[in-house]
C-alpha cells in the first residue's frame, strides 16, 4: 500500500500557523507539547544484505508448494527502478502500459536462467532463482538483500510448474502490494490494479487449465512506497489449494 503515513509535518505546520492566525480550535491545535526525541533503539537482528535470511537458492530438485499450496519458488529479476509517488496510480491502463514497456521479453513463455542478465530499457538486470522461506515472496526483502532500491520498483517473476495430470477449472489466486499482472502459458490470467495489500487470494483468475507437464507462470509486481510483496497459488474448482504440483526453475 502507499501510505503517506501520519503527516506530522503538515500537522506541525498547521499547529504553528493555527497558533499564529487562528488561536487554535481543533484537536490538532491543542498544546501538543514538545515532541520527545526517540530513545536509543538497538538493532534487534542481522541487518546485513544477504539473501539467505529470507530465501534459499533454488535447487535443481523439484519443489512442492507449501502446505497451503503457495508457490514459493520463483525466478526473480532485479528491480526495474520506477518513479512512483503513490500506489493509487496503478490503474488497469497504467499497469498494462508499464508492464508492456518495461519488459524483458514479449514472449511470455520465455524462461530465463538463474544468473542470466537481461536488459529492460537501459538497465541490465540479473535473474535470481530463489525459494521463499515464507508462504509469500517478500520483494522488499529481496531488494534489501541485493542492496537495490526497495521502493518505486517493478519486479518480473517467472516460475515453471509441473503438473502430473491436466487439471481443469483451476484459478490462479494472488495478493500483492501493490499492483501486479499474471500470465499462464503465455496468456494473461489476471490483473491486480489499485493500491492493494498483500492479501492471500485477494484476486483470482477466471477458470484456467493447468496442462499435464510444464506450465509457465509469468508475473510482474509494481510498488511505490511501502513493502513490495506477493503471494500466489492455484485453487481447484472447489476453492481448495492445488498442492499436487512440482515447481522448478528450468
Amino acid at each position, binding site marked *: 500500500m502507499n501510505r503517506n503515513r*501520519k503527516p506530522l*509535518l503538515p*500537522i506541525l505546520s498547521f499547529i504553528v500557523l493555527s497558533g499564529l492566525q487562528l488561536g487554535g480550535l481543533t484537536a490538532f*491545535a491543542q498544546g501538543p507539547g514538545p515532541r520527545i526525541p526517540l530513545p536509543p533503539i538497538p538493532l534487534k537482528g542481522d541487518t546485513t544484505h544477504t539473501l539467505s535470511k529470507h530465501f534459499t537458492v533454488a535447487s535443481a530438485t523439484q519443489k512442492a508448494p507449501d502446505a497451503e499450496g503457495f508457490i514459493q519458488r520463483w525466478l526473480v529479476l532485479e528491480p526495474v527502478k520506477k518513479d512512483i509517488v503513490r500506489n493509487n496510480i496503478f490503474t488497469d491502463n497504467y499497469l498494462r502500459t508499464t508492464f508492456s514497456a518495461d519488459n524483458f521479453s514479449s514472449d511470455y513463455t520465455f524462461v530465463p536462467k538463474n544468473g542470466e542478465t537481461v536488459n529492460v530499457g537501459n538497465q541490465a538486470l540479473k535473474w535470481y532463482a530463489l525459494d521463499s522461506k515464507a508462504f509469500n515472496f517478500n520483494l522488499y526483502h529481496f531488494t534489501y538483500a541485493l542492496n537495490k532500491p526497495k521502493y518505486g520498483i517493478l519486479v518480473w517473476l517467472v516460475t515453471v510448474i509441473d503438473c502430473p495430470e491436466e487439471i481443469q477449472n483451476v484459478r490462479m489466486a494472488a495478493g500483492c502490494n501493490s499492483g501486479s499482472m499474471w500470465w499462464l502459458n503465455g496468456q494473461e490470467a489476471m490483473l491486480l490494479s489499485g493500491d492493494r495489500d498483500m492479501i492471500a487470494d485477494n484476486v483470482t483468475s477466471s477458470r484456467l487449465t493447468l496442462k499435464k507437464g510444464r506450465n509457465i507462470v509469468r508475473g510482474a509486481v509494481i510498488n511505490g512506497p511501502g513493502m513490495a510483496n506477493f503471494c500466489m497459488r492455484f485453487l481447484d474448482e472447489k476453492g481448495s489449494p492445488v498442492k499436487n504440483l512440482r515447481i522448478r526453475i528450468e
Partner: protein
Amino acid sequence: MKRMNASCLTTLFALLITQTTFAQIGRPFIHDPSTVAECEGKYYTFGTGGGGLISNDGWTWYGGGVRPGGGAAPDVLKIGDRYLVVYGATGGSPNHKGAILTMWNKTLDPKSPDFKYSEPVVVATSDGYEENDAIDPGIMLDPTTGRLWMTYGTYFGYTRLIELDPKTGKLKAGNKPVDVAIVCEASTLVYRDGWYYLLATHGSCCDGANSTYNVVVGRSKKITGPYLDNVGRSMLQGGGKMVVATRGGLIGPGHFGHIVLENGVEKMSIHYEADLAQGGRSVLGILPVVWKDGWPIAGEKFKEGTYEIESVRRGYALELAVDFTRMAVGPRGFGQPNNDPIKPAPAQQLADVQKNWPTGPIHLRIGDYMSRPHQQWTITDAPDSTGYLGGPYYKIVLAGTDRALAATADAEVITVPAFTGAPEQLWRIDQLTDGTYRIMPKTVPNSGKKLALVSSGDSTPTLAEFDYNSDNSKWNFRNH
C-alpha cells in the same frame, strides 16, 4: 520529497480556505483518534500530533484535550482509577524507526488539579530494519484474566502483540512480541464470549477523499492468535472481515476503538479520512457496534425518516390510541368470476381520520400494524444542540402532524398536540448489539431515572428501566 511538498501545500491551502469554519465550535476534527474515554461525565479522545477533543455529551466535540509528547495515534484505557495513555513517538517515520510510550494520568480533564501525566516509558520499539513500525498502539485489559495487552504496527510488516503490566504500564518483564497480523494499521483487541477479536485498519490513509482505509476483524480463541477471518484466512495472510468501510461522503474509516456503555449498548470510535460535508477534513466518527453471528459490524447512525415503530416483543406497532377507521372494502366474491377492471385502491389518508381524533394529549398503544396514519411516525433531528455518544436527540411526531411523543412524570408515554422542544419530547435512539433499537426520552419529568420505551404486555407502551435481555425493551424502525 514530492509527497512532503504536496502535503505542506495541501495543509496551507486548507488552512487558508477554512479559517472561518475552523473558528466554529463543535467540529470534531481529528486524525488517528484514541478510543473515546469517559472521565467525570465528559468524553475525551486524543489524536495524532498531540491534543485531543472533549465533549460534554458525546455528540458535540471541541478542542481542548491535552496529551504531551507529540507523535501519533494514541490510545487510552481506564484501569482502576487511572487512565493509561499510550502513543507512538513518531508519525510513522520513513525509516520505520519508532517507539511506543505509555503514561498515566488520574484524570483526562486538563482543568482538574489532579491532571498530571507521569513520565512516559518506552514499551515497544522498531529499529528501522525489522518488519514492524512501532506506532499505532491499541490496548485491552483482558476481562477474563486482568492481563493488559497491546497491539501495534502499520502496513510495514507485522502487527505485534505484547503484554504490559497493568499496575505500571511498563512492558511485562520477559515479554517478547508475537506477530498477529500483517499489513494492518491501528489495531486493537476486543474480548467477547470466549473469543479474542483483532480489529485493524487496512487500506491507505492520509490522502483525503482518496484514502481507502477500512476496518477489518479476525478472531481467535487464544490472545496470541492465529486470528482468522470469516473464511478461515489468517490475518497473518492479510485476512480480515469487513467491519466498517466508506459510507456516502464519510470516506476511509480507520482507528477502531471499542466502547461498552452497558450490556447491549456498544459503540465504536473511528475517524473518517475525509468528510465531504466538512470540506474533506478528517473527522471523528462514532457508530453502534452490532454483533452478528459472532462478528462485529458497524451499525447505522439513525437515519431520519417516516417509520413504523415496531415492538420486538410481538411485532406490533406503536400507534395512537384512537378509533380504528375502516377502509372501504374491495370487491368480494371469492371464487366468483369477476372481469371488472383492476384498479388500485387508495390508501387511508391522515385527513380521512384525523378529524375524529381528540385535539389534546392522546395516549398510545401497540397494535397490529395496518399501515394506517395513526401508526406512522416521522423522526427528525430535534432542533436541539445536545446529544449523546454518537447521536443527536430526535423529535418523534405522528407523520403529517406536529403531534409529538412525550414522556410523562408518571413514567408513561403519550402524545402531545404540538412539539415544544421540551426535554421530555426529545428521544435518544441507540442501535443495540443485536441490531434492534433502544428508544429513551432525554428526561422523565420530575425524575432522575434513566428509562426507556418498553412494551408492557403486547399492547401497552410505557417507560421502564432498559433490559437488554428482554425483547420488551427493543424496537425496530420499519420503512415500508
